[in-house]
């Protein structure tokens, strides 16, 4: 009976998740392209080629910088804004709605918006920075290798921080008020209360939020693609953009699949980490 109940879910998962995933792994051992539509077994050759290329190490490094940069900034900003919105400010509902706006926007719309803002000649960013005296001349944020990744990360953080904020805000509202009041009576200032009471109370949520945003960010495609297409040179190429470019831009499906397999491996590690964090949280709640 139990098997009958879980069968529909198992069938759907197999058909729509595991079959494509296994298919990607198999495809990565075959040379296929539009002009050679019949797959030719290549063994480890594609992996050797990918691993030996300079691009792979660039993409791996970019993916690490991109993921850590976005996750760190998005969570810090999300947490700070959540703290602010948890202070019982006037028009709190409206403020929350406004803060949520970037997250609601589709990724492509966000990217187009930021492309305009970063425009070296007509963009708002240069205009503001020059007026403030922080820049002397226009900067091509998305076209220079030294600034492109930071610019893309900044846009992603702008779009993503409301997601983290929402989760932190929910967690902050569940912190025991009595503990905070007791700490206040004991003479703890706001920073001490934050470090000793609030953060320990929401650490499970922080851990889950960090791992979740890590998985989502690693898989992010549309924003980076529309902003830079992975350029200039390979300065902002990450796994998803490289997979798309190789598979659907150049129709080298075997190589795209190999990049996909590396991507799956990284995600598997992150998912395993997520499961460990969840289990640890559950165990802690059980013992508490």
């Amino acid at each position, binding site marked *: 009976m139990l098997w009958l109940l879980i069968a529909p879910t198992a069938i759907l998962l197999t058909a729509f998740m595991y079959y494509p995933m296994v298919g990607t792994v198999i495809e990565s051992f075959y040379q296929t392209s*539009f*002009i*050679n*539509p019949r797959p030719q077994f290549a063994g480890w050759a594609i992996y050797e080629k990918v691993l030996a290329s300079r691009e792979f190490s660039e993409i791996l490094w970019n993916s690490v910088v991109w993921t850590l940069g976005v996750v760190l900034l998005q969570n810090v900003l999300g947490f700070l804004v959540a703290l602010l919105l948890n202070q019982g400010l006037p028009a709190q509902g409206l403020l929350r709605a406004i803060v949520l706006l970037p997250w609601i926007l589709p990724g492509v719309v966000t990217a187009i918006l930021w492309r305009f803002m970063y*425009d*070296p*000649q*007509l963009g708002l960013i240069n205009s503001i920075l020059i007026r403030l005296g922080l820049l002397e001349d*226009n*900067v*091509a944020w*998305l*076209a*220079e*290798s030294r600034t*492109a990744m930071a610019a893309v990360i900044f846009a992603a953080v702008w779009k993503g921080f409301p997601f983290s904020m929402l989760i932190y805000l929910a967690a902050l509202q569940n912190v025991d008020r009595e503990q905070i009041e007791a700490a206040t009576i004991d003479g703890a200032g706001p920073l001490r209360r934050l470090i000793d009471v609030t953060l320990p109370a929401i650490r499970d949520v922080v851990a889950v939020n960090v791992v979740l945003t890590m998985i989502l960010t690693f898989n992010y495609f549309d924003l980076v693609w529309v902003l*830079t*297409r*992975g*350029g*200039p*040179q390979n300065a902002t190429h990450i796994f998803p953009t490289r997979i798309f470019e190789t598979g*659907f*831009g*150049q*129709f*080298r499906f075997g190589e795209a699949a190999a990049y996909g397999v590396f991507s799956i491996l990284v995600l598997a590690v992150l998912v395993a980490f997520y499961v460990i964090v969840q289990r640890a949280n559950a165990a802690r709640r059980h013992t508490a």
Partner: protein
Amino acid sequence: MTRTIFAATLAGAVMATAAARAEPVTLQFWDNQQTESGLSDLQKGAVDRFMKENPDVRIEVTTIPYPEYQQRLLTAVQGGNAPDIATLDQIWMGAFAAAGAVDDLSEMTGKAGPKRDDFFSGAWDSAVYQDGLYGIPFNVDVWQFSFYNKALLESASVDPQSLTTFAGLKAAGEALTRDGQFGIGLFGHKGEDTVVVMNSFVFSNGGRVLDETGACALNAPEAVEALTYLQGLVPYAPKGILNASSGDMRELFLNGSLAIEFWPALEQPTLQKSKLDWGFIAGTAPEGKAPVGTFGGWNLALFASSEHKEAAWKFIEFMVREDVNGDVVDLIPANKKAAEAFLEANRKDPATVMAHLENAAPRPLSPRYLELADAELRLAQEIYGGAEVQAAADAACEAIDALN
């Protein structure tokens, strides 16, 4: 008894043939649309005309937006659902031919119908792969024309004709770049427009992308000289070349902050709608040489899987006919006579456009063109980013030769 069965079978076969004759043949024709020109209505008119002339053939037209056209075609071919006829980008011809997805039309053109002389030679060559002819040129354009803002050139005392030479263009760039204004709309984002502009400077300097043996020639002296020249134009271009496209340059050109932009002739309708006082010259070459543009455009191909090849060929012949071709394209008709009439009616200075089309060269017809173009893109980004040109060209050639 045997006779009766034979007679019945024969009668059945005759009836089936008659029924088949009575049933019109339906052809699937796929095309894409790059510009907002109301082309679909015009194509519909032409298709209706074809069906009137050929009542036994029905044409079903599918128009697909350009960004998804290639993917849809490839999926259809691989899934065994290819159309009978489709327009193919010149740069896809090698791949489709090598995959056996489209038919060699050499025999068809050998008998009657379209001939090389009827078309721009560069466009015809764009359909020739390993001595076979895998398409008939349908529409064309050429990269690049240099469109200029007359007022800005006048204020800097730059003679527009000077833009036709390497030295003149560079000097103009220097004179026109000042006070938040830029001289030359050079761009180098990851897009095909970057490749075709780079190619046209290489071609105009006597260089090539591939030599006659198919080996990369981008590191040959003529190509390196042209690439070095392009690198020298960077100071006169708006900032952000490596993430800028021809579309970005158009914005600056239209708002008056850019003096010269590079586009094919299809830019003319946009500029005609603007309030800008503009002119154009055809490409740029060293003193004493004629500029050689890079062809862009589409060919009509007959798919190998078509079950109605005779009718499909009839339709291709119809679409490239002098009296039809001009009505059914959103670029310039590939049929030279139709092109003359089209340019006369729709473009400023048609003689200059025509001459540039006559002298343009196609991009390399490689079955791995997309990978080749990717290596060229990396080269463009390297040189616009300030890399040493010979070393960057050597690296590009190493990547391109590895494709063989």
